[in-house]
Each structure stands twice: as structure tokens, then as C-alpha cells.
């Protein structure tokens, strides 16, 4: 406990970096997964290659991906961009299927009605289909958020400072306190992100929390 109190600033700083490294890929991954998920939903033939193909990305070990990134991106090994891009890849891997499922969960007659009223395809997608897919997409996003928080810590092995650094530090010094603090901080961060996504998802879907007719 004493260790935490004397290193509060340091842990706080690591936590912020950790959060940023988790959240930015989450946003990038979502933005990439939406069009891919739409393609998978819209074209039956593309569904299997897209969903299975992106899903396979998730099986690449994170350490390997972090090391591979500088070769692909031409970045330095310590560049946080490596982590951001790698985690974006994982997020896409988790979200393409979710987005496709979410879009498919929207009742066909609702989309038909939108078309019949003269709502163009783009407006129909962003105004009708995507909002109605939010509950399903948010569920996938929560999984991706927690997964990101966990995977980011691996980047400590490359020397990119975040909560994972507490593990390498504690391990190197054979000192348990920073490891425990790191685990708890990761859990808190994951929980906070999870709750934040849940809260946003609920805030943008008010129609789901109203009673049925008496």
C-alpha cells in the first residue's frame, strides 16, 4: 500500500497512457469495422471472407504483432503508433461480425418503410439502421474495450510505458506491490470503459427503456 501512495503520480500517468492506448484503437477499429460490417451484411458472398478473415487477425499473438508493426509501418520500435495500429486491428477483428450482426438485427420492414418514404441509402443507414444496431454493436464494443486494456499491457515488453510497465518492473525487481497495483488498475480501467460504453449506449437508445403498452 505504501508503494502505491509514494508512486501515485507515476501510476496515474501510466493509467492515462494505458487508457489512451486502449481507447484510440477502439474508435479507429469501430470506424473501420462499420463499413466492413456493412459490406458483410449487404453482400452475402462477402460475409464469410470478411467475418472469418478479420476474425483470424485476432489469432495473431499480440507480441508478434507489436514487433511486426515497425516493419510494416516503418516506425521505431518504441513508437506508440505500433500499439495503436495493432490494437485497431484486433478491434476490427472483434467488431466486423458484431457490426454485421447488429445491422442484420434491424427488422427488414423498418428498412423497407424507410426506402418507401424516399429516405436515401446514406440517410437510411445513418439515420435508421445504425442507430437501431447500437445495442448489438455496443455489446461487441464492450468486449473489444476490455480486450484492448488487457492487450496493451503486453506492449510493456517492448518498453512502451503504460500499466504493463508495472508488471515488468515488479518482475525485474522481484517486487510484488507494483504488479498488484498494475492488475487492480487494469481492472478498474477495464470496468470504467465498460461502464462508459454501456452508459453511452443507453443514452442513445432511450426507446429501449420505455414500458410496453398496458
Amino acid at each position, binding site marked *: 500500500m505504501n508503494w502505491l501512495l509514494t508512486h501515485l503520480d507515476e501510476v496515474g500517468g501510466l493509467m492515462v497512457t494505458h487508457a489512451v492506448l486502449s481507447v484510440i484503437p477502439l474508435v479507429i477499429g469501430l470506424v473501420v469495422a462499420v463499413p466492413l460490417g456493412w459490406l458483410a451484411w449487404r453482400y452475402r458472398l462477402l460475409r464469410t471472407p470478411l467475418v472469418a478473415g478479420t476474425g483470424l487477425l485476432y489469432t495473431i499473438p499480440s507480441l508478434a504483432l507489436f514487433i511486426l508493426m515497425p516493419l510494416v509501418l516503418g516506425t521505431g520500435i518504441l513508437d506508440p503508433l505500433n500499439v495503436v495500429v495493432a490494437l485497431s486491428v484486433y478491434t476490427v477483428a472483434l467488431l466486423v461480425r458484431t457490426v454485421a450482426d447488429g445491422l442484420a438485427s434491424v427488422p427488414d*420492414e*423498418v428498412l*423497407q*418503410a*424507410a*426506402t*418507401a*418514404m*424516399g*429516405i*436515401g441509402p446514406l440517410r437510411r443507414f445513418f439515420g*435508421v439502421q445504425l*442507430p*437501431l444496431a447500437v445495442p448489438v454493436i455496443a455489446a461487441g464494443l464492450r468486449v473489444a474495450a476490455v480486450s484492448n486494456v488487457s492487450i496493451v499491457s503486453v506492449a510493456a515488453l517492448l518498453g512502451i510505458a503504460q500499466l504493463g510497465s508495472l508488471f515488468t518492473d515488479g518482475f525485474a525487481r522481484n517486487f510484488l506491490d507494483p504488479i498488484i497495483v498494475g492488475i487492480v488498475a487494469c481492472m478498474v480501467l477495464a470496468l470504467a470503459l465498460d461502464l462508459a460504453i454501456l452508459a453511452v449506449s443507453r443514452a442513445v*437508445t*432511450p*426507446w429501449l427503456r*420505455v*414500458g*410496453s*403498452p398496458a
Partner: protein
Amino acid sequence: MIRFTDVTKVYPGGTVAVGGLSLRAPSGKITVLVGPSGCGKTTSLRMINRMIEPTSGTIEIDGRDTSGLEPNELRRGIGYVIQSGGLFPHRTILDNIATVPLLLGWDRRRARARAHELLERVGLAPELGRRYPNQLSGGQQQRVGVARALAADPPVMLMDEPFSAVDPVVREQLQDEFLRLQADIGKTIVFVTHDIDEAIKLGDQVAVLRVGGTLAQLAAPADLLADPADDFVADFLGRDRGYRGLAFTEAPALPVTREPTVRLGAGADEARRVAAGEEWLLVVDADGAPAGWVRPSALVAPVGPDDLHRGGTVARVGGSLRAALDAALSAPSRRGVLADDDGRLVGTVRAQDVLAEIEREPSEAAS
């Protein structure tokens, strides 16, 4: 007027959904497309607003070929109602109704005012406007669907089985309201249903389609019942065609008999005295509306609601021959109860008198 000229829809793979359909849906009238599944009725409907493109043939609305119009522009000028309303679950009732006006660039205030007006028009309380669709019953959602289709006051409405997802009682209510509404607004309506009774009730003209999307017969409902073009149409119309056809013949002045009555709550002795030996006596409520028949000989206490035989239907004076005949046939006394437009008792009519009128009327088939 909507005019189909030799319209064909062939799906990839060779399935012919619509095969050379030509018909006109006159302005201000309800044209019902009816037929078994696979007869292309929904496909035909959706070709009007170009949700489905015809393989060949032309569809014109008021003389303009729809294939030359921008699809979204075209659709904003055509109301569209589907089963369960197809409402947007994530938008409030008012926002649902205001969809097309907002697409057309109305300002929000005007669109909302219009939505309020329509909510009232279809018989829904204003406070429902702030709710979401899943807070409404099926019948209410269906009304919202109609209101939404009417929002920008389009001259043409397409309705695809709009009333088939609600229970029979609500369906009948919605149909009656719909007819009253149409009497006011006089839209050019194309209505799809698989239910021949609905077609006959709602249509100014009914197009019976057969599998493969060809027109078997296009006629006014009474003519359809009286003179089906072939066995397919006759089979599709089903039984009791003669009886159902009477629904389209307004009853002439029938010989009405004044009926002795007692009020609900009258004593047993009074009932027996008024009945003067007749087995059945008609009971009216405080407003003079027929309440039901009672058997005075069986009374032990004043006439209560539980004593009433309620099997008899009530026909309106000036209603159809079918209603008058049914009133006579359904009454335990065989005296058919007639009421005025306010529901007050006028008198009774006997089946033989209704039948005499039917025989006097020239048959539709002969005309």
C-alpha cells in the same frame, strides 16, 4: 390515376412474379389487389413506387411515366403503409409521422404541427405523440402508420396488408375508420390484401390476381360477387356469394312493424303484460337503443342485463339488404331489429319482407 400497361416482372432465375399486367387505379378511389400468395400483388404494388423495377411495361401516375422520375422524389409523393406500420422504433410517434415532411424540407415547427393534426385525425390522443412505437398497441401503431403515410398529403397511397397483423375486432374497427377517412380525403389508393372479405369491404374496385401475376378479373365488389369471370375467381371469392352480395344493395323502404318494448329494469309483470302472449319481447335501454330480447314467461324479477338474449344483430334503416336480412335471421323472435343512425329503435322487419324486396330488386348478374 395510376395506369399499368403490360407490366411484367421476371426475377433472375426466371420466376415470373407479374405477367403482363394492365390495369387502372382511378383517382380518388380504392383499388384492391387481391389473390393467393405468389400472385404478384405486393410486387405490383412496389413497382408503383419503384422499390421494385419492372422488367418491361410502363407504370404511369397521372400520365407521367414513373421510370423517368427520381425514385426518392417519387416515393416522397406516395404514402406507404405496411403491416404493423413499419414504424421506426427509435423515433417518437410525432417524429415518425413527421418523417416525410422533414425530408421535403418543411421546418420543424410546421412538421410537428402537421404530425399533431394527423395524430388527432387517426383518432389517437395527443399525449401518445411523445411515446415510442413499442409503447403503443398494434392497432394504435397501425393508425400511426396511416398518419405517417398521410403526413405530406400525397395524392397516392400504397397499402400492403396494413390491417392483417391485428386481431379481428381491431381490424374491423381500423377498416371502418379507414373508409371514413378516405371518404374525407379521397386519395388514390392501391391496397394489397390476401383477404377477399377485406377486398370486398374496402375496394371501390377489386383486381383478383392469379399466381404468375395475371389479372383474373377487375370489377366492383358487387359485380365480382354477382358475376365471377371464371372458376378461379368464383373459388377465390368463396361461399355465400349471394348473401354477401346483398351487402352492396341498399335496403329500400322495408315494411317496418312497431315493436312493443320495455325498458331495462321493468318489472316481470309489466313485461308479460306488454308482450301480450308473444314468446319474445324487445328490451331497450334508457336511450331507446335496442338492448336485446327477453322471454317474459321466464322472468322472476325485473328485467336485468343477464336476462337478455344478445344473439340478434341490429340493422340500420337505409343500410344494406344483407344487414336487414341478418337482423331478422339472428333475432330469436325472427323479427329483425332496425335502428336509426343514432342507434335508437325504429321497429322490426321480417325475413320474408326482406326476401320479397330482394326478389323485386333486379339481380346484379342480370343487369
